[in-house]
């Protein structure tokens, strides 16, 4: 967009531009408060380019709405009915299912096939259907309520942040599924994210907005050792701590910048411990914990889901309201360092 008043200062300019873009989009979609609308209208009056942009959006939106629609036939309804009827048999805890006459379709062999498919689907694809709680499948939560921004979450009292141990290896206490902790404790770094093409001030602004605390931005442990070898190569290594939810939103927002590339790395000592049933075994993994394994995550959604999944795993057995802070290490590589 033209007319950026902060082009002299790229950092401030970046965020000013992002802010204008967001407001302009919300204005176009009639999602702004009257006072904000007036601001944008002033801006539009001063900048004809913006007006042209909105005209283009309108035209494209009209074209999208005029596209022919895809539809399903009546057979589809019958197919869903067959699956659901089969499910009624498989779900005795549901209220009595009355015979349906949607399409007067007999289940027969197709019903048995549907039942078998449903059972497989339930066990392997949608395991949460056999348990209580929100619908989950492949790391996806299907709560009715959205993942709300940090401001809407119940605030937890800030817990004291312990510096990572001198080896910078992840801590292992209370990380076994099913283990409960009487108090929320920091768990050590669980995820490393390589952030490319962002500036430190960009990240700081986002992290502040999501109430994420920067513990250390020098990439060093208390004994002076670098967290990981990459931190020695001119990268900023930022150790951050947040409560559940905030981290996901923040990483989403970072990764959502078009020019910024985010790559998530797992720490073998952590992720492999998912399959280990006791803390001793986890400690044995520590020796290899610094060998980071890149995970191919190409989008904000994928990254946030990965984090969410990781976070959920570590929280198994934790009681509600006793959530532990989450720690991540951000490796920041600006364009000039690449």
């Amino acid at each position: 967009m033209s007319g950026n008043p902060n082009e002299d200062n790229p950092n401030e300019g970046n965020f000013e531009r992002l802010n204008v873009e967001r407001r302009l989009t919300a204005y176009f979609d009639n999602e702004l408060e009257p006072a904000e609308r007036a601001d944008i209208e002033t801006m539009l009056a001063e900048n004809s380019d913006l007006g042209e942009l909105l005209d283009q959006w309108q035209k494209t939106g009209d074209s999208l709405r005029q596209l022919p629609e895809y539809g399903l036939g009546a057979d589809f309804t019958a197919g869903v009915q067959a699956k659901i009827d089969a499910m009624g048999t498989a779900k005795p805890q549901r209220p009595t299912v009355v015979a349906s006459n949607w399409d007067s379709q007999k289940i027969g062999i197709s019903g048995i096939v549907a039942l078998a498919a449903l059972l497989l689907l339930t066990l392997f694809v949608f395991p949460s259907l056999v348990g209580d709680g929100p619908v989950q499948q492949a790391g996806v939560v299907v709560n009715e309520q959205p993942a709300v921004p940090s401001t809407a979450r119940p605030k937890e009292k800030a817990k004291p942040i312990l510096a990572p141990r001198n080896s910078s290896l992840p801590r292992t206490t209370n990380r076994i599924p099913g283990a409960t902790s009487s108090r929320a404790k920091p768990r050590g770094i669980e995820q490393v994210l390589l952030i490319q093409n962002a500036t430190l001030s960009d990240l700081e602004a986002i992290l502040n907005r999501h109430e994420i605390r920067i513990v250390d931005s020098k990439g060093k442990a208390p004994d002076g050792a670098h967290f990981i070898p990459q931190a020695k190569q001119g990268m900023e290594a930022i150790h951050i701590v947040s409560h559940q939810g905030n981290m996901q939103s923040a990483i989403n927002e970072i990764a959502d910048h078009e020019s910024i590339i985010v790559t998530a790395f797992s720490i073998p000592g952590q992720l492999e411990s998912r399959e280990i049933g006791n803390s001793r075994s986890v400690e044995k993994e520590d020796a290899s914990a610094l060998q980071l394994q890149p995970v191919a995550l190409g989008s904000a959604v994928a990254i946030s889901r990965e984090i969410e999944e990781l976070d959920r795993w570590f929280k198994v057995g934790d009681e509600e309201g006793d959530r532990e802070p989450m720690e991540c290490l951000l490796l920041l590589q600006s364009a000039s360092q690449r």
Partner: protein
Amino acid sequence: MNNPRAKHEDREWICRTIDGDTESFGFLVKKYQDRLYNGMVQILRNESEAEDVVQDAFVLAFSKLDSFQGKSAFFTWLYRIAYNVAITRLRRRKRGISLDGDDARIRLAIPDNGPLPNDSIEKQEEAVQLYEALDRLSSEHRSILVLREMEELDYDAIAEILELPVGTVRSRLHRARIRLRELLEKAID
């Protein structure tokens, strides 16, 4: 979507279903299947995958119907379930595990009720260009455009379906529109 009458009607069918009358769920399926399917086709760019996703979504919704509290519209809740199933498929596809053995997007064609022979050539070309541009968009950008421009959902509903903060919905929509425009301009050139 925000029509109170429609919401009340949905609520009625939901209650009856929970009480054991599955026929009432059939009304919900009939009411929303085409709308949901159209959205999933646009997101997945594949008709047969979209049909599977919509079917799975309805079955999942049925199984969890008693947990639906009516805080959001039923369609938003249903769409969120379908979107999550679709995203799982897209992730598999990204990892190279094609469900049909090849690039599933290639076969998406304009539906039968598409531009008719007597429509202007210009209009037909425009539709083809739009389809091609939608194909080239990232799934994140395509999804948010489908939700806003085709489904005409408000930001809160989009945020709920995509599980994003509203601020991110704004910025992602902005970039999606810019990107779509770029692709269309490139196609015209």
